[in-house]
C-alpha cells in the first residue's frame, strides 16, 4: 500500500535578491516526502539544503513552484496564516536548540500547546509523556542553562513533537553535539519514527545522521543530484 504523501515539493525555485548579484539557491527542485520517512537532505555548504528546509517549513516562500503540506499549498498562505500553519503542522528542531532560556524544560515543551490553547490537563499529560519519551522525565524543572547540549536538543525534539505535527524538520540537529549525545539523540528519533511513524526530515552534513537515514536526498547547486533509499 502506498504511504500518504505529507510534503509535495514541485518545481521549486528560490532566488535571493539580498545582494547585488541575485543568488539562485534552488533551481527547480521536486521531491515528495511520505508519512513516516526518516529522510536526510545532504549536500555541501551553499547547495540549498537549508533553503529547501526553510521553504518546506513555511519559514520562507519560493520564488516559483509549489509546496503542498498535507492538502495546503503553503506558498499561497499569508504571513499570519503561515504562523498558524506552522504551529499546527510543523515541528522544528534547530541546530542551536533555541529553547526559551527563561523557561524550564517542561515549560518549553508546553509552550506551543499553550499557543494552541490546549487545556492544562492535556498539556501536562502530553508534556510528561514527551519528557519521558526523550528520557528527561527527571529534568522537567531545569532551565536550558542547567542542561547539557544533548539534553537541550532532546527537549527541543519534545517541544517539536508536542503539538503532534505532521512532520519534524531538523536543521543540522547534531552539529553542536558530541558523539554520545548524537547517538542518543538519533536513537531516540529513530525510535519515535519506528514506533509512532513520525516523519523526520533532516538537513545535515553529519555522516552519523546520514548513516541512520533511510532516504538520502543529495542537493548540489540548487538541484536534486541524487535521491536514494537505503535498505
Amino acid at each position, binding site marked *: 500500500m502506498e504511504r500518504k504523501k505529507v510534503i509535495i515539493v514541485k518545481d521549486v525555485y528560490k532566488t535571493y535578491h539580498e545582494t547585488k548579484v541575485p543568488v539562485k539557491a534552488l533551481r527547480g527542485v521536486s521531491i515528495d516526502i511520505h508519512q513516516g520517512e526518516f529522510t536526510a537532505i545532504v549536500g555541501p555548504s551553499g547547495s540549498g539544503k537549508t533553503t529547501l528546509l526553510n521553504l518546506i517549513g513555511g*519559514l*520562507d516562500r519560493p520564488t516559483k513552484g509549489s509546496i503542498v503540506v498535507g492538502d495546503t499549498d503553503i506558498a499561497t498562505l499569508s504571513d499570519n496564516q503561515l504562523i*498558524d500553519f506552522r*504551529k499546527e503542522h510543523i515541528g522544528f528542531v534547530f541546530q542551536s536548540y*533555541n529553547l526559551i*532560556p*527563561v523557561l524550564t524544560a517542561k*515549560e518549553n515543551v508546553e509552550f506551543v500547546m499553550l*499557543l494552541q490553547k490546549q487545556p492544562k490537563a492535556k498539556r501536562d499529560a502530553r508534556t510528561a509523556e514527551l519528557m519521558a519519551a526523550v528520557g528527561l522525565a527527571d529534568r522537567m524543572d531545569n532551565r536550558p542553562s542547567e542542561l547539557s547540549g544533548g539534553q537541550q536538543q532532546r527537549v527541543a525534539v519534545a517541544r517539536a513533537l508536542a503539538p503532534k505535527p505532521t512532520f519534524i524538520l531538523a536543521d543540522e540537529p547534531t552539529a553542536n553535539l558530541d558523539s554520545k549525545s548524537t547517538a542518543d539523540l538519533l536513537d531516540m528519533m529513530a525510535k519515535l519514527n519506528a514506533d509512532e511513524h513520525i516523519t523526520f526530515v533532516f538537513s545535515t552534513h553529519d555522516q552519523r545522521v546520514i548513516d541512520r537515514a533511510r532516504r538520502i536526498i543529495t542537493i548540489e547547486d540548487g538541484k536534486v543530484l541524487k535521491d536514494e533509499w537505503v535498505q
Partner: protein
Amino acid sequence: MIAKIAWLNIWRSRTRSLVVISSIIIGIWSLVFLLAFMNGQVNNYISSIIENETSHIQIHTPQFKEDFEVDQLIPNADQLVAELGKSADIHAATGRILLNGMLSSSAAARGVMVKGIDLRLEQPVSHLQEKIISGQPIGSGRKNEIMLSQRMAEKLKVKLRSKVVLTFQNISSDITTAAFRVVGIYKTTSKRNDELYAFADIADLQRLAEMPQGSAHQIALLVNDFDATDTLAAEISNQHQLLKVETYKEISPDLELFNSQIKLNMIIMTTIFMLALIFGIINTMLMAVLERMKELGMLMAVGMNKLRVFFMVVLETLLIALIGAPIGMLLGYLTTQYLNETGIDLSTWSEALEEFGMANIIRPFVTADTFFIISIAVVITAVLASIYPAFKAIRLKPVQALRKI
C-alpha cells in the same frame, strides 16, 4: 505564559534592567519633588495674598472699588460681620475701614492706606499679631495707636513710641489731621503691602473720620472650605444684592493667571521628564530585542503570532516602568512629606520672594491627583517607548532571525 516570559526576560540582563529601572525611579522621584515644590510655591503665593490682602471673600459697596471714596460705607457692617461669622461655612469675618492719606513723621512723609481694624476679629483673618516683630498690637484701650511695617517705619525714620501724623479726608470730605503713636512694628511677606498699609483701631478711624459707629468700607471673610469659595460668594451676593461680593480670584486675577501658568509649567515639566524617560527605555528595549532576534525568530517559527510578540515586548516595557514608577513615587512622597514638615528655607532669596509677596519657607506637597497623572503618564510613556522595539520585533522574518547567532 507570555506574561511570565516577559517578566523573566526583564531579569535576563539584570544590570541593564536595573539601570533603566533606576533611571525611572530617579526621574519619577525628581518629578514628584519638583511638582510638589511648585505646588508649595503656588500655595505659598496664594496663601500670602489671601492672608495679607484679599482674604477669600470681600464685601464692599458697589461704588467703593471704583474710586475708594471715603463715604462708600457698608451701613451696620458690624451686624453683618456678626451674622456672617456665625455661618458654619465661614471661618472668620472682620470689618475694615480703609483710609487713603499721608503719614508724616518729623523726618519724612509717605502716602499710605490705613486699615482700621478690630484686632480681635482681624487676627483669625490675617494673623496680624504673629507678624509683629517689635512692640505690641493696637487695641490696648488707648486712643490713636498705629502699627507700621518695618519698611514704612524705616522710610519715615520712626521707632516704637514715635509720633506720626495722619492726614486724610473725613466723611464730609474735609481734610483731617490726627496724631498717632507707633505701638507696634510688623513685617509681612509682601514688600508691596508693607510699603502701602498701616493699621489703626477701627473705632479711632470711625471717630476721626466722623463715620457712623459699626460702619466699614470692607468686610473680609475666610471660608472653611477653600473649594467652596465661589458658591459661598454667590450665596452671600444673593442675600445682599446691594453689596458687591467678590472672591479672591476676582479681586486678584493675577492669582488665577499664576495658578494656570504654574499648572502649564507642571505639564511641560512632566512632558519633558517623560520624553527623557522614553529615550532611555527605547534604548534598553531595542537592545533587548536586537540581542534576542534569534529567539524571537524561533518563537515566530514555532507559531507565536506577531500580535503576541508585539504584546510581549510592550508588556516587558510596561513591567519595567511599573517597577520603577511606584518606587519613584513612594520616594517622592516620603521626601515631600519630610520637606513639608521641615519646610524649605529660601531666605537667601527673601528680597526677591518679598517682591512677589511670598514667604521664605516653601512647604512642598503633592495631591492624589499628581500621582494619578504621573501613573497615567508613565503608562503612556512605556507604551510609546515600546512601540518601536515591538515593531522591530514583529518585522523580523523568522528565517532571517534564525540565521543570526
